[in-house]
């Protein structure tokens, strides 16, 4: 279980996150949803340990991690642009961290990750030869072999086109289930957030607007922001789709 207690963060005196309190259960998929500049990436980096906090505590399984450096926290991230190493091929990227964790992942386990992400045909390819979706799966594989205790994803879908998007969404869900991996995903698309996660954290201007399951958010929006910005977008989408396909699909 990951607990954030009273987290505050300022950049150059300007408050970016304000008194964030949050509990995430092991194995849950949580989306961080909010408009641009609301502090989603900052919160993700705070959990990762990349960004320090001005105030508050981060507690993971009853251990206070607030002052534990990034590399000792045991969390890992997939960056939006994947940050793959172009001088290595796909396979070499995936096993990059293994030499630092000797024995933690067996040959069979490694193969299991590769199979699961359907990367076998692409292992020998250079990074520049991979498609966006393939790059992302390599990046996820590289992170998974490190057996992170929490998997963080910053806008994993925004660089992908429609069809790939759906399959990656499914994949992320099944990774979390299969490996019982707590997963935190940043997104600014309400549809994405509500269709792929167990819980959604809606942030607005550095404050939590609402934290709850998709059902709770849809049925009991906590405030005007959730109603106006989050639900409104979904309604417009629904409207557009009705107009395209006609009432019979309603």
């Amino acid at each position, binding site marked *: 279980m990951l607990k954030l207690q009273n987290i505050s963060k300022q950049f150059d005196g300007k408050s970016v996150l304000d008194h964030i309190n949050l509990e995430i259960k092991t194995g849950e998929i949580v989306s961080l949803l909010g408009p641009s500049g609301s502090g989603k990436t900052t919160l993700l980096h705070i959990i*990762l340990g*990349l960004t*320090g906090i001005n105030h508050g505590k981060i507690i993971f399984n009853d251990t206070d991690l607030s002052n534990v450096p*990034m*590399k000792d926290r045991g969390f*890992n*991230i997939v*960056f939006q*642009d994947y*940050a793959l*190493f*172009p*001088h290595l091929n796909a396979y070499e990227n995936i096993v*990059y*961290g293994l*030499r*630092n*964790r000797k024995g933690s992942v067996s040959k069979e386990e490694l193969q299991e990750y590769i199979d699961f992400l359907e990367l076998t045909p692409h292992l020998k390819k*250079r990074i*520049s030869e991979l498609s966006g979706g393939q790059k992302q799966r390599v990046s996820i594989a*590289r*992170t998974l072999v*490190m057996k992170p205790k929490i998997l963080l994803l910053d806008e994993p879908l925004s660089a992908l086109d429609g069809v790939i998007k759906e399959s990656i969404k499914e994949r992320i869900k099944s990774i979390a289930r299969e490996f019982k991996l707590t997963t935190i995903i940043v997104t600014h698309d309400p549809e994405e957030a509500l269709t792929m996660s167990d819980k959604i954290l809606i942030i607005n201007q550095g404050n939590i607007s609402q934290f709850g399951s998709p059902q709770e958010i849809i049925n009991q929006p906590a405030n005007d922001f959730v109603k106006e910005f989050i639900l409104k977008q979904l309604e417009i989408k629904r409207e557009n789709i009705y107009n395209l396909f006609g009432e019979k699909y309603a």
Partner: protein
Amino acid sequence: MPDVKPAMRVIYIPILLLFAAFLFLPLGMLFVRSFETADGINLSNYLTVLSNAELMKSFENSVKISGLTAVITTVLAFFLAYSIHCTRLYRPLKSVIKTGILIPMLLPTITFGFAIIYSFGNQGIITKIFGRNLFDIYGFNGLLIGYVIYTLPSAFLLINNSFKYMDKKFIIVSKLMGDGTIRSFLNTIIRPLSGTLGGAFVLSFILSFTDFGIPASVGGTYSVVATQLYQVMLGSIPDFNNGAVIAILMLIPVVFSVFLLNYLEKLNFHYDKFSDIELTQHKGRDICFGSISLLVLIGMFSVFAVMFIAPFLTSFPYDLSFTLKHFIDTFQSSDLTAVYKNSLFVALMTAVLGTFIAFSSAVLNVRTPLKGKSSMDVISMLTNTVPGMVLGLSYLLLFNGSSWKGTFAIIILCNMVHFFTTPYLMAKNSLSKMNPAWEITGILLGDSWIRTIYRVILPNSASTVIEMFSYYFINSMVTISGIIFLVTAQTTLVASKIKELQHFAKFNEIFILSLLIFFTNLIVKLLCDHYQKRQFKH
């Protein structure tokens, strides 16, 4: 950016100390010495130098000839670059122009002078061909030819690069708008290039103003600052304090020029997108520019031709029978092979250590959050400004009494600092284009920061590192102005040996040594280019 400051400081602090000891301290010393007299610190050295008519004349001469060189070089370099980018010359011909023009970079400038003497002098090849002396070669004319050949490659590279990033679609637009040839030329070529052309002028000026090799060989009685400085420091009555003053005075126009360069940089147009377009057919244009470029190239080659011919002849120009005797003699002379080995050693060490320092400095500046990291930029500005002769002289002043005197270490350090700017900027440019999340990713995958640099950043910079290496190597191989004050009998390098051989009129040895430098540099350059290409295939 990852926050592992202790590891970063382990690199940062030694680099700062290095530049403190081998850049700031010597320059400070130079400054102090220029004011030091028998009766304390005062301005009398400056008064002595400024009231010395001969010295003042040499300043005037330097400014005059460097200015003229800069005009000629800029015009010629523009013609060459224009031929490459804006004409439909036969492609292989363009490649020949592009590569051929860079050849002088592989030779020490002192060789240029001797090649000129052997081509245009009383007994020179070109003189023989024409049957009479075309002009007096010692002094102004010889210097001018030498300086133009020396500065042309650098000016060409600069202009050529700007042409590459110029949007040639504007040429078509201007035509469609009904502009005449002149107007179109001014608006679409000259105006966008004005910053670069100014830059090429200033660069050529600085290079000629501070070069020592050319006036040392072909200067004759036309005295310039560089030769005056040499005489004051190492002549029959050395005067270190006056030398320091001359060095400071030499620095003034250079400092001014560097500011001008930075200003001109702002004039450059920055196209975010540029497109290549089919150039219009125009026979007259192509023939005109093609022949001018070829003439420049042939002119340059004909000056150097003698270097490749004379050492193979028994006694040029009297006995023109073929012989390998001079080569065999040179290679059997343990003296000359030792000098060549010295040069090779210095160039290799400079290239390895210099690349390491320049690359580390760039990593610190571009890829760490360290406070004060931009001091690297200040250092690079400074190393760009200080001429080799001034740097070498300041080392001489600082280390003369110490055990550093006469060591290879001091020569290598001088070269590392002297040529720091370009490799540093190369590294900075390439590092700033890399994904900023790589180091964090490496650390999350269990590597330390330094290991990530080694396993990820370095391999992805391979091509740049090779280019930096080649730059350092070739420049250390050819420089004379930087090391002329630092070599001793035990640490003689090829370039300074050539200067010595001049006194004994041993031109065959001079040319053979020059050829050695030339082919060594050529091999290093070709090898580096080859490995660089392989890297790009990633």
